């Protein structure tokens, strides 16, 4: 076995996006030794790409908003599959976390009264997204980064963890490598917080970066944690479509929040077609284009335009329009915000103006954008206790996109930036409390040896396929059969491809030295990608209904029985099992909130 450096912490945080940084702040404030590991440089995590805003019912816009309305919106948006207690904690504490962020130094856009300005977004009844133009994620990550750095955790940048170490059912540490040198590192820690984000890179067209290979959730699964709702992948309705180099890059929902209109190639504003209005949203949206136009100026007396339905609904509508032959030249639909006036668009959506002008050759203050759904977010993930974010493995905690349960079958825009604040803090607190009373567990040396073999294998081989080839084939398979429209036949075909690729992934080859070698890194990543792809497809096969992001054309309606169950994925002896488990019961005081929705 190759020698490695051993580093000890009380709490190790995997990931330095919003959830990881917020968790680290809590750990440092508890006076514990905190280590943060991140695959990129600090401040480059996916949070930086969030645009529209952070949802919290501050009620700054003279509308009767409070956490209860936010609760109802989130459950409705999630098609009733959310963990109700998580949503309750989330909607209440989101308010405190946003105000706390402001005390850390975040500088949000203001109302005329000098309070935080809030914008409308899909599925939110009232203006609720606290924002900074269309670069809210950057504001959030930089604020948390500065705050965390001021508290002095040790940050291991450009370091990749490939194995969580468990001894007698308790977390013992994590093993991986430093990207720059390629040397091995062993972290011993009393507790670990996984805050490693999502896994959009399994698909061909995604808004996600290379980092989103799902290592954290895959490692947690292998370590004995449960994953839930893995079939629920979010397809964001508006990704860039043209030119090809930009395919999949996000176009913020704030464009629609600021009045953006969707039209098909015939010029129809198709979201007004009643076939796209789900029963549970009947009567809550404008029914004429005139009402939608009045809403821009008078939100109290008019209803929202149907472009602001939740993302799953809008994505499906765009998909159906294009499939029915009403798509644009490049196979999408038009999104137009130019009617708001150039000055307004430039002030509210500066990054979008820049992105389209420089990279797409489109001036969005004057002409429409071409858009198509893009893989964006993972609602499913590691199953956690709502109070502490503890997983099924003692000492292992999870928060943010890699955790599941809060968003149910579909996440509302704006809910992820507050998710990472609320549950980042809870995971940090939970891990600190656990670490305070836990001994350091013994390191399972066998697992370290095994992991070294897996890591070094691709460099030792004389021949073998490139991991990029396998990743490409996986992306094609997932894009073809595990996207918006799903069937038993397509999913089965996809699963067969994944299992075949899994075999091939054991024989991939990487060339060159270990210093900063992306090909070598990809050789390990592909195994995580395949494991989670298998979990996604097996879960999608198990859920024989359509709900939220899961649209099965062979089971086209919501099934009330499936509405009472989450699909849970577990690993035992290297085998993956998929089991429906009962959804946690909604407490009576929360049921009352849902019943008020009928009035």
């Amino acid at each position, binding site marked *: 076995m190759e020698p490695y450096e051993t580093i000890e912490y009380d709490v190790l945080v995997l990931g330095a996006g919003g959830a990881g940084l917020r968790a680290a702040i809590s750990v440092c404030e508890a006076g514990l030794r905190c280590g943060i590991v991140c695959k990129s*440089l600090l401040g480059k995590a996916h949070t*930086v*790409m969030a645009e529209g805003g952070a949802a919290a019912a501050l009620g700054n816009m003279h509308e009767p908003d409070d956490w209860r309305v936010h609760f109802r919106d989130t459950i409705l948006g999630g098609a009733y599959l959310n963990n109700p207690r998580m949503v309750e904690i989330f909607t209440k504490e989101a308010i405190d976390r946003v105000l706390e962020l402001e005390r850390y130094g975040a500088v949000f856009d203001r109302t005329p009264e000098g309070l935080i300005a809030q914008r409308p977004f899909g599925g939110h009844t009232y203006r609720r997204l606290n924002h900074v133009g269309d670069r809210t994620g950057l504001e959030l990550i930089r604020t948390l980064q500065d705050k965390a750095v001021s508290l002095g955790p040790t*940050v291991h940048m450009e370091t990749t963890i490939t194995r969580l170490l468990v001894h007698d059912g308790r977390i013992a540490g994590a093993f991986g490598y430093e990207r720059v040198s390629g040397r091995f590192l062993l972290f011993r820690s009393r507790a670990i917080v996984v805050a490693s984000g999502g896994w959009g890179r399994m698909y061909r067209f995604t808004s996600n970066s290379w980092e989103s290979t799902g290592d954290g959730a895959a490692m947690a699964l292998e370590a004995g944690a449960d994953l839930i709702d893995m079939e629920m992948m979010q397809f964001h309705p508006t990704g860039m479509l043209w030119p090809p180099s930009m395919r999949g890059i996000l176009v913020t929902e704030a464009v629609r929040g600021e009045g953006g209109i969707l039209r098909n190639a015939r010029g129809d504003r198709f979201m007004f077609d009643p076939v796209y209005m789900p029963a549970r949203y009947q009567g809550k949206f404008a029914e004429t284009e005139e009402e939608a136009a009045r809403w821009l100026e008078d939100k109290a007396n008019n209803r929202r335009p149907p472009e602001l339905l939740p993302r799953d609904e809008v994505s499906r509508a765009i998909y159906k329009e294009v499939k029915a032959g009403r798509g644009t030249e490049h196979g999408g639909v038009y999104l137009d915000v130019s009617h708001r006036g150039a000055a307004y668009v430039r002030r509210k959506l500066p990054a979008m103006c820049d*992105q389209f002008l420089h*990279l797409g050759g489109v001036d969005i203050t004057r002409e429409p954008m071409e858009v198509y759904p893009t893989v964006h977010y993972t609602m499913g993930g590691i199953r956690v206790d709502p109070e502490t974010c503890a997983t099924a493995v003692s000492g292992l905690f999870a928060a943010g996109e890699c955790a599941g349960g809060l968003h149910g079958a579909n996440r509302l825009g704006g809910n992820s930036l507050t998710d990472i604040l609320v549950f980042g803090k809870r995971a940090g607190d939970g891990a600190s409390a656990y670490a305070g009373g836990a001994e350091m567990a013994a390191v399972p040396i066998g697992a370290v040896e095994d992991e070294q073999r897996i890591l070094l294998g691709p460099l030792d081989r004389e021949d073998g396929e490139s991991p990029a080839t396998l990743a490409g084939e996986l992306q094609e398979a997932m894009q073809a059969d595990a996207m918006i429209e799903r069937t038993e036949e397509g999913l089965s075909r996809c699963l067969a491809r994944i299992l075949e690729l899994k075999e091939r992934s054991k024989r991939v080859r990487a060339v060159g030295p270990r*210093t900063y070698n992306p090909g070598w890194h990809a050789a390990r990543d592909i195994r995580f990608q395949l494991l989670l792809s298998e979990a996604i497809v097996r879960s999608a096969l198990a859920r024989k209904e359509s709900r939220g992001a899961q649209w099965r054309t062979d089971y086209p309606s919501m099934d009330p029985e499936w509405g009472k169950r989450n699909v849970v994925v577990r690993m035992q002896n290297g085998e993956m099992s998929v089991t429906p488990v009962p959804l946690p019961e909604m407490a009576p005081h929360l049921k009352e909130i849902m019943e008020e929705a009928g009035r």
Partner: protein
Amino acid sequence: MSETVRLRIFRGDASGGEEKEYEVQTYPGMVVLDSVRQVQEQQDGSLACRWNCKAAKCGSCSAEINGVPRLMCKTRVEDVCGPTRTIRVHPIKTFPLIKDLVTDVSWNYRIAETIPPLQPPDTGGKPLVMDQADVTRAQEFRKCIECFLCQTVCHVLRDHNRKDAYYGPRYMVKLAALDMHPLDTLRRREFLRNEAGVGYCNITRCCQDVCPEEIRITDNAIIPLKERVADEYYDPVKMLIRRLTGRK
């Protein structure tokens, strides 16, 4: 019909290296980062480069393209390949080379740790009130994506390697963001003058020219900070008072 472009990418590490040539297929809208990644995926998996968002939001993929420091994700192949259809891609020069297009920028993170953080007033937990007009000033500086392109063109850092004396434009922007934050109560003028070395900037505006976020680094951040320091330390009346009272 598909076209191609020739990339001359620097390959090597601290011990030395050279340009290597790669030919890649182009497609509409292709940016330099796409072409470099195509080499990575199809020709040489060990080619090192940093990238994340591919949308000019994270500031990871800084490089010197035909000698000009830019973000690879925001530079279109067609705009820089010229009639010879050749592009030279090198790592940014001001920081030590690790490998290929990746440099050791850790100095910047160490500098960040030394800057005294925001000190907001205690409002007893009440929501903070700030005017948009005040907020707008600080927001310009908070657009920074930490690509370090400004650091790499700064003469003090690049030509004179005075990283011991001057924090560089990125951290002038950060200090300006704190200075102009409506809620900050901490005075950092002595820090600006001594540790951060604001006096070293000789206002060539090179940093401002390369900023992909179009932050007016010199005009809106550095010059006002210089004025703060000048006001405090070089005001003749205050200098006289200091001399008479013996206070610093």
